């Protein structure tokens, strides 16, 4: 049996404006998606902001009612059998919210253990075990308001494991964490995977998805546009090379000229304060560099690197340069 099954799931948000003359607007967040996740699988859901990732996770965690279509978790319908689904899942939405800052870490866990119906005797043993597992041993008595972002994220993990759920939904769990915190967090995810938990992970970090996920679905504008293993997705760009050009303040008109070049398959721009990184996908490899340089003539340039494509490049090609 699949742990999660989604069939033609769709979710439309309605927004209203005005009091006397009321107008409503519909926004399609998820448009007809279908996929299944096997027991024990670590499944990634990637996509740009607003692609429908969080909406999908919220429907699967019973927090949103789908507009149409069906979804089951462990065979239970997320709308009609929400209570059964809730007993079997845990979830984390990225960020610092979702905890009681005026309570200690231990009290937060005691509170949620009680809400998940964990026997008090069991939770007495489980809470120290989980605090130890997420690296918060010795800090459980402190108020959560004084925790760093990484500590709060780790407390979220402990909270979500209190009732030992079979299925975990991790929605951008490493967002905002420093590199060491994010690495520690990925190790926690790997440990959970080794315990045969089924995990649905959404993330913006491609290397994270590449390192962790068994399979990845790429979602854009509410539709699944690719579903494969990380290796399979990379095959989408196997014939390409990537030229990375470090630049400073290249105007949009020059970027348009680059996009118009016949050998440029796609161009993505990563902005980092004043610095820009141009990621040019091309079949010509290093031979493309002189023509790129002549188009960028007069611009302030930094280093130029030609490299093999990664999952991120496959993702950029799939979503058409949206980041």
């Amino acid at each position: 049996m699949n742990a999660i099954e989604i069939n033609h799931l769709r979710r439309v948000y309605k927004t209203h404006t005005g009091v006397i003359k009321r107008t409503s607007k519909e926004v399609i967040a998820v448009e007809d998606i279908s996929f299944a996740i096997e027991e024990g699988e670590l499944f990634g859901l990637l996509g740009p902001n607003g692609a429908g990732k969080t909406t999908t996770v919220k429907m699967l965690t019973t927090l949103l009612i789908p507009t149409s279509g069906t979804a089951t978790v462990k065979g239970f319908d997320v709308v009609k059998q929400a209570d059964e689904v809730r007993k079997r899942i845990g979830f984390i939405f990225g960020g610092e919210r979702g905890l009681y800052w005026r309570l200690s870490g231990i009290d937060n866990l005691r509170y949620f253990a009680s809400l998940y119906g964990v026997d008090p005797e069991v939770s007495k043993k489980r809470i120290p075990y989980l605090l130890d597992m997420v690296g918060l041993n010795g800090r459980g008595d402190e108020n959560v308001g004084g925790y760093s972002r990484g500590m709060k994220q780790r407390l979220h993990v402990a909270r979500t494991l209190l009732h030992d759920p079979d299925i975990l939904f991790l929605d951008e769990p490493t967002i905002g964490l420093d590199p060491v915190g994010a690495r520690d967090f990925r190790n926690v995810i790997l440990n959970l995977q080794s315990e045969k938990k089924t995990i649905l992970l959404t993330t913006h970090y491609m290397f994270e998805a590449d390192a962790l996920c068994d399979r990845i679905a790429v979602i854009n504008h509410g539709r699944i546009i690719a579903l494969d293993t990380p290796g399979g997705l990379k095959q989408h760009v196997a014939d390409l090379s990537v030229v990375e050009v470090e630049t400073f303040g290249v105007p949009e008109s020059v970027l348009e000229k680059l996009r118009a070049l016949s050998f440029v398959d796609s161009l993505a721009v990563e902005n980092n304060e004043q610095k820009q990184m141009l990621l040019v996908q091309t079949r010509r490899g290093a031979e493309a560099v002189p023509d790129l340089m002549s188009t960028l003539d007069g611009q302030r340039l930094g280093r130029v690197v030609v490299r093999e494509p990664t999952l991120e490049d496959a993702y950029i090609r799939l979503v058409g340069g949206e980041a």
Partner: protein
Amino acid sequence: MNFRILLKYWRTILVVAEMTIRQQLMDGFIIFTILFQPIIIAALALWMLKGKGPDYAIFVVVGSGLTGLWSSLLFISGNSINIERWIGTLESLVAVPTPFEVIVFGKNLANVFQSLLSMILGYIVAAWLFGYSLSIVQPLWFVISLALTIFGFICFGLVIAPIFVMSPAVQQWQNGMEFPVYVLCGFLFPIALLPNWTTPISYILPPYWAAVALHGTTTAGTPLNQTLFALGMLVLFSVIDILISSRLFKVMLFKARADATLGLE
């Protein structure tokens, strides 16, 4: 529902109440609602009724205590749902296997229990500041009435909470809901002073019967039958409120999930 599940829910209610009190002890707004507002109301009412005797004083003490209970329930319990929404915990609370009404029961228990302080403070203001000699005419029935009042207020709060779950915009109407209940439930003066058409509305509100019972047990010459009838009605309408709230929670939670109002995004 079997005994084991009830016991589990009761344990959860106590944990929710404990955590609610722990958090609220650090909140200035809540301290004001529970401690200072009832003192101000009691002092003003006692000053207005100055010289009318200890019977009026105990009426005011009980009445100002009831206003504290109602304000606490309306503002603190209502706000607490919106606060849960703002801090991102409302979704977590809805997505646990424990029914949401059990969680709200625990929160209301904490708020109503804390608000009993209002009544004690009113007593202190009357006795120490105004020098009244206060006595409770039927102490045993007063204690029973107080326990059932707590239950009645919790149940009344259960009917209000689903509305706050459905939409954060409901908070705008809170102020408008506070005073009518003071008046309709006869906390500080008898409802006989109100137009006749309001009487049926008072009768269906558990706090009205709580006020009748508490005022009856503290006022000399009130027949016990009248208190017992009020307690019976208090229990009856409290149970009706539980049944109504159970249905309301289902409808409002479904609507909140359909309209995406559990979170802020």
